[in-house]
């Protein structure tokens, strides 16, 4: 039964991973930018939430309403300034700038907040409570809520991309930037919107992660970035639902690994990732070529 519990845990945490992954995937799909600081932004959001709560004493859940839009705006600004500048130069430049940002953020957090882990305590029954199915399966409320939120966000993103003006523009610019310009679209603005969405979703994930687990300066890369990437590859590029599936597979693999040996959790996930990379680079749901 511990296995069933583990698998359910894995599925649910997959939602969180999908939340981390969809921004990474969006930025690559639209701008061809792999944001190496992606995970660190989630951690920044988490620390920001802690800071905001500590200073203003607003209810914990309100921190989402403050931090997520803030991060989205930050994303737009960063994209229009630094990332666009790097994009205009070369792929190497974007990787170096985002890697530089990652290092600066992590070491900055380390310098100012030390390496101690922090969590966002809510004191709500939501976080610590759980419900049971039968006598041996126990599922935490928080994780279920996070999964539900992740699905809602993905649905929202799907709707946004398929049915709204900016969603269409984002897809058009991703297909053919010049043709979009010829139709009157300023692609830099569209890139900014995509970055805002990416930063917003990863901030959401980061705050949720801070509630579910602990945040450290290095969580951004060790955990979030690498897991997000693994979820994207396993699930296949170009598909939001593939990203969810990828997150779920990753989560389940990790939990199974943890059942085998508690220290094998992360490793199990990476091994599945490497297996997919070796055997089916397009991922489980593929749409278009990857390499």
């Amino acid at each position, binding site marked *: 039964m511990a296995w069933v519990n583990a698998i359910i845990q894995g599925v649910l945490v997959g939602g969180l991973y999908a939340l981390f992954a969809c921004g990474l995937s969006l930025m690559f799909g639209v701008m061809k930018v792999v944001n190496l600081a992606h995970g660190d932004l989630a951690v920044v959001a988490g620390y920001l939430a802690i800071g905001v709560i500590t200073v203003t004493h607003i209810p914990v859940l309100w921190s989402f309403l403050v931090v997520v839009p803030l991060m989205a705006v930050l994303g737009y600004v960063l994209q229009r300034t630094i990332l666009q500048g*790097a994009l205009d130069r070369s792929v190497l430049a974007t990787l*170096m700038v985002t*890697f530089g940002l990652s290092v600066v953020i992590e070491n900055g957090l*380390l*310098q100012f907040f030390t390496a101690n882990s922090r969590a966002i305590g809510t004191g709500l029954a939501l976080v610590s409570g759980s419900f049971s199915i039968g006598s041996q399966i126990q599922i935490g409320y928080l994780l279920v809520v996070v999964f539900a939120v992740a699905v809602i966000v993905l649905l929202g993103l799907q709707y946004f991309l398929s049915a709204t003006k900016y969603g269409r523009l984002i897809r058009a610019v991703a297909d053919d930037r010049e043709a979009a310009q010829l139709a009157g679209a300023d692609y830099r603005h569209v890139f900014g919107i995509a970055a805002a969405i990416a930063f917003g979703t990863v901030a959401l994930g980061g705050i949720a992660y801070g509630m579910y687990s602990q945040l450290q300066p290095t969580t951004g*890369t060790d955990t979030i970035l690498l897991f997000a990437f693994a979820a994207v590859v396993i699930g296949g590029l170009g598909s939001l639902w593939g990203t969810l599936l990828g997150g779920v597979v990753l989560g389940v693999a990790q939990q199974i690994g943890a059942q085998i040996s508690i220290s094998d959790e*992360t490793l199990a996930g990476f091994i599945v990732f490497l297996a997919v990379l070796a055997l089916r680079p397009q991922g489980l749901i593929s749409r278009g070529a*990857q390499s």
Partner: protein
Amino acid sequence: MSLVTETTALPAERFRVTRSRRNVAWTGVGALIVVVVLAYFPYIVYSGTTAILVQAFIVLTMASMWNLLAGYAGLVSVGQQAFVGLGAYFVLILALHGTSPFAALPVAAIGCGVAALPMWWLVSRLRSGYFAIATWVLAATTMLIIEKFSSIGGGTGMPLPGFAGLDPTLLTAYTYWAGLAVTVVALVGIYLLLRGRLGLVLTAIRDDEAAARSSGARVGLARMLVFVVAGAGCGAAGALLAISQLQVQPGAVFSVQFTAEMAFVTIIGGLGTIEGPIVGTAVYMILQQTLASYNAWYLIILGLVAIVVTLFARRGLWGLVDTHLNVRLFPVGYYLRLDEERPRALRVLPRRG
């Protein structure tokens, strides 16, 4: 009406293709003098200084390798720490079986070169950005696997055996000379590699990959070779690291900090030139010595400077020197020389960031 365009055609005999603008023999002599002087250091300076220089050697070797990958082959790897760690562990494992760590160093380098092959197979098909993160995942995975083996220290690491009975001063000196040797071999090796066919192939790939392929250049092979060499080089640096620290801890030797150092040093110094990492390493060492007690700060500053350089001074510090003074210490390009004249700008330059 005819459309004849006039050209001033010069007879072909009046042109020469040379490898450098000035007589590079002087640079060679200069380099030799520098190396000989450096070799004497253990006799004339304090061991504190040689220890710092060993650090510089490690950083310079790693940066040169990263430069080879990113500046010449267009491969941006954020996972070279995998080889640094593997190099350290190769030395540890061999030392645990009785080999002298110094003897283990070249073996570690070769071992890492071999280990690079399956890694290349896994990630070579990925596009730039995804290639980068994939190398990072590979590095993290490598560390996690190594940590499972308690016989080599597990998650906490263990001291490096094999130096019992060795006088500390001698140890410092040997470590220093090992570092000097590794760096010289690395730099000379890269120089020779790039002066030869590989350098041409890499430049051709950089300019027009499809054309390079169709004219017979083995693109995949060239890139793989570079990846393997860079793996071996970083492995040697890792081995040196283990020797200089006298212990091997997974968290320390597999740290992504090494990639940060490699990359930033190269960018600041100048990507795509052999001299660049040398300049960058000098800057890095000065920074590190000045901010020694503020551990996180030098990485923050390094990172910020690297971002600024990437956006505004692409060719780095050496690029500024190169542009204004027209100097190339390690000439790997070609120049078209008209008799008696200063060479024209048929410079076949390596990849620019």
